[in-house]
């Protein structure tokens, strides 16, 4: 099960860090965390996947839902520090164009 950590950088970027496995169990909390950030005025969000040991299609769906919410508010959602498993899943689902991984959180925006 994944634990979702949230903070804001000095530059007003939201950073969401799912720790552990990001499956059906944690997908909804992830979307909710992104929506909460946007509702509070932070529409540029980085999801730091460096601590995410595993992601499934529900986790991807949550990322896309978050991405849509950010873009609606004029911002964007980007992902950073993907593990090999995340990179593989993005490729297999053709999401590597819309969710291009960044090497670090700081580089994302």
């Amino acid at each position: 099960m994944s634990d979702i950590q949230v903070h804001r950088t000095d530059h007003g970027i939201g950073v969401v860090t799912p720790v552990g496995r990001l499956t059906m169990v944690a997908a909804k909390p992830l979307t909710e965390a992104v929506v909460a950030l946007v509702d509070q005025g932070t529409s540029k969000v980085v999801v730091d996947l460096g601590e995410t040991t595993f992601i499934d299609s529900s986790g991807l769906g949550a990322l896309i839902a978050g991405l849509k919410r950010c873009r609606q508010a004029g911002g964007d959602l980007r992902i950073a520090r993907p593990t090999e498993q995340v990179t593989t899943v993005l490729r297999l689902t053709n999401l590597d164009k819309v969710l291009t991984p960044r090497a670090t959180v700081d580089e994302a925006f």
Partner: protein
Amino acid sequence: MATAHEAVLVARPEDIEVLQDMVAALWDAEPGVGGTDRTRFEMALVEIFANVVEHSERAHGGPPVRRVAVTLTVDEEQVQAVLVDDGRPAAVDLSAVTMPDEDATSGRGLALAVAAVDDVDYQRDGDINRWTVTCRRTA
């Protein structure tokens, strides 16, 4: 030499964790399985289990009492999972499953499973559903 791990899980989201712990134990017992094969096998297995969970929730609505018997086997050729449950038939045609658009927030599960491993099979057999996930071992 073949290893088989068996368990009976409940068709509910929390048991995805149990399933993944079971997979981790399998790799401990079979350290020779390569990293790529581990990843693609686990991905497909999690998607198929999640589909059983989600589909049984959608179809029944009541509390998730349905059981899923899981058998994981490793031999020199392949890693395989067999999932058996006694729910309604899954009226899905795996040969026709395709990946949805970029902007879809759901519908990728079965397509990802099919893309990840060498074979995903579904059979209705009397009163039971049998899902088989097969991953041939690569060097």
